């Protein structure tokens, strides 16, 4: 019983983290059709910045500062790299973001060195006890922020005027332009939001996970699984997929024999691709 409860709750916490990492990717993918391979590398950069700025008196201030920094970074990436290639084949954007990931990784290696770094002592100690399961507070906070980010992004895209403009611009660029929407501006905002949310989780993530230059590789792969599973570009789908992936990971690790537990997520992924290639929530926001 306590194995199940522990696996269930830590799966949900994992899901919250996966949401936080994936929704930005889903947003950029969904509304812009841009496959951003540098998403993980940008998360890595956000984590290093979180460690560098250190304690600003309150972790919330660090969060807001990092959101600003990463949103600006997202905007710059869009204006400098994506926009010039926006009308080209998707392969170009894919190569550009892949190139950016390589540059960021090597720059981090050069500037921060190769040793893993973290801030486990950032002052969020102890665990939440619930039905016999122990959930470290920093992971709980991380998951809560992930859920909050997901809801906020979803509301932003579906309810706000800017969100509707973003969707309009992504669905029919020409029509959007004709109706007076500044397409380039709204897409830059979408990119800034998608990357900016990475800044919100970085200050918490460095308390549970060490950062090294190649950290992005690990996250970007799982984030892509979540985005594709959810139905490319659907924020709601990504949220549901994150829960499925998180639970599959922890329940698989607890109950499946040997290394089968590690493969569970990938087996699930292959099955979904075979039987529902458009993803769980394909073609919806």
């Amino acid at each position, binding site marked *: 019983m*306590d*194995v199940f409860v*522990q*696996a269930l709750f*830590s*799966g949900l*916490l*994992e899901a919250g983290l996966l949401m936080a990492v994936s929704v930005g990717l889903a947003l950029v993918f969904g509304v812009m059709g841009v496959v951003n391979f540098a998403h993980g590398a940008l998360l890595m950069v956000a984590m290093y910045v979180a460690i560098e700025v250190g304690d600003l008196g309150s972790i919330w201030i660090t969060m807001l500062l990092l959101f600003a920094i990463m949103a600006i970074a997202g905007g710059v990436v869009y204006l400098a*790299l994506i926009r*010039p*290639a926006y*009308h*080209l084949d998707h392969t*170009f954007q894919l*190569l*550009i973001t892949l*190139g*950016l990931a*390589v*540059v960021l*990784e*090597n*720059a981090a*290696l*050069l500037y921060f*060195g*190769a*040793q*893993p*770094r*973290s*801030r*486990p*002592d950032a002052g969020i100690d102890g*665990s939440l006890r619930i039905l016999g*399961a*122990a*959930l*470290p507070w920093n*992971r709980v906070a991380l998951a809560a922020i992930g859920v909050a980010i997901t809801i906020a992004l979803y509301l932003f895209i579906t309810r706000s005027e800017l969100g509707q403009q973003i969707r309009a611009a992504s669905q029919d660029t020409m029509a959007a332009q004709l109706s007076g929407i500044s397409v380039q501006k709204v897409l830059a905002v979408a990119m800034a939001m998608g990357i900016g949310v990475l800044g919100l989780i970085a200050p918490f993530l460095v308390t*549970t*996970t*060490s950062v*090294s*230059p*190649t950290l992005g*590789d*690990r996250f970007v792969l799982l984030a892509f699984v979540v985005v594709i599973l959810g139905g490319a570009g659907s924020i709601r789908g990504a949220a549901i997929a994150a829960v499925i992936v998180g639970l599959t990971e*922890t*329940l698989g*690790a*607890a109950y499946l024999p*040997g*290394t089968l*537990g*590690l*493969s569970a997520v990938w087996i699930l992924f292959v099955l979904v691709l075979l039987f529902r290639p458009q993803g769980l929530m394909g073609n919806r926001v």
Partner: protein
Amino acid sequence: MSGMRRTRGAWKVAALLSASLVLAACNGDSGGSEDAIEVGVVIPLSGPTAGVGEYIQRGYELAQEEINADGGIDGRDLEFKFGDHAGDPATGAREARTLVQQDKVVALTGSYESGVTLVVAQTAEQLKAPYIVPYSSATSITESGFTYTFRTRPPLPEWAKTMTDFLTWQADNGGQPVEKVGLLVDGTEYGDTAAAAYEEAAQAAGLTVVDKRTLTQGDTNLSAQMTQLRNSGAQAILASTYLESSMGAIRTLDSLDWDVPYMTVGSGIVAPAFFDLGELANGVTSTTSWASTIDNEASKKFAEAYKAKYDAEPTDDAAYAYAAAYLIKEAIEKAGEDADAEAIAETLRTAEFTSEGANIIPTGGTLKFDEKGQAHPAILMAQAEDGVWNSVFPEEFASSDYVPSGG
């Protein structure tokens, strides 16, 4: 218009890729003098284990600097040429080949991941170049019949035996008696080999393996696995986790209020970055093949020189790199003037190496390779105390008393 955009897009890609190449090149090493004796080092300087590669590179560089300041090898400079394998076996083989055939190095050393080491050993065998392996611990490396491969680091079964010996010993020295152990290993060949070695050592020591759980290296959320291990009745955990996951495991144990010995192989725990855990690090005891506190003058001198030069504590990997450099120096000297690769290999097969530098690792003073090309230094248990790894076991190499948990 569209043609121009296409060109601009392509130009951006080209610019990004070349920028990354320039950055990557800055990481490498170059230059060298005419008549230096060159030795090739194939290690991970980028990729997921670049952190370990950095320690290793510094170990070689420090030894090179000392050796050359002290007159080199019979008046000639010793120079290490570095090749980056980034954790990839094919790249490792290519780098080794380039170093031997183009750069004409007289010997090879390095690699880290056992998979890479294995293919570099095959390459060295083909090219008849002596290859000194100071890191990888997979058993297969010395069980494949290689005659040019010489490993200074003990293989996994000896690490496993040290863990079970320690579990027995600590029960008589204030610790809790342990009868049941649980395994936590990754799903790679390394994890499989570790699990097999742990099972064998446990059986030999009269311990029961009650459960085996798996993880993906890099995972830090291990509470599902840990809860299963606790339910199985395990009183100690033998793991194959690398540093990232080991730190996650220690945090998980703490969050579950479960206080049991957790051990893994070498720098999977015993590394300076482990102290990022703060208070949680204290008391953790795990295996290492070297500790700066062991009673050995040359070893202490090395630790101080390393700290002075790099402003960081050395790891066992750095110590093994440094010792390998001195071993190579001694082998070349023993092989005689103008020694070629064949003469150096033959010296490594037959001679005993007694220089201080080559014996900063716990050998007891003499390093010698058996017929399989394996040397037999001791494996130690080190315990964390306020930012220092103290050697606590075996007693012959202990610098501090073991502090049982809760004590």
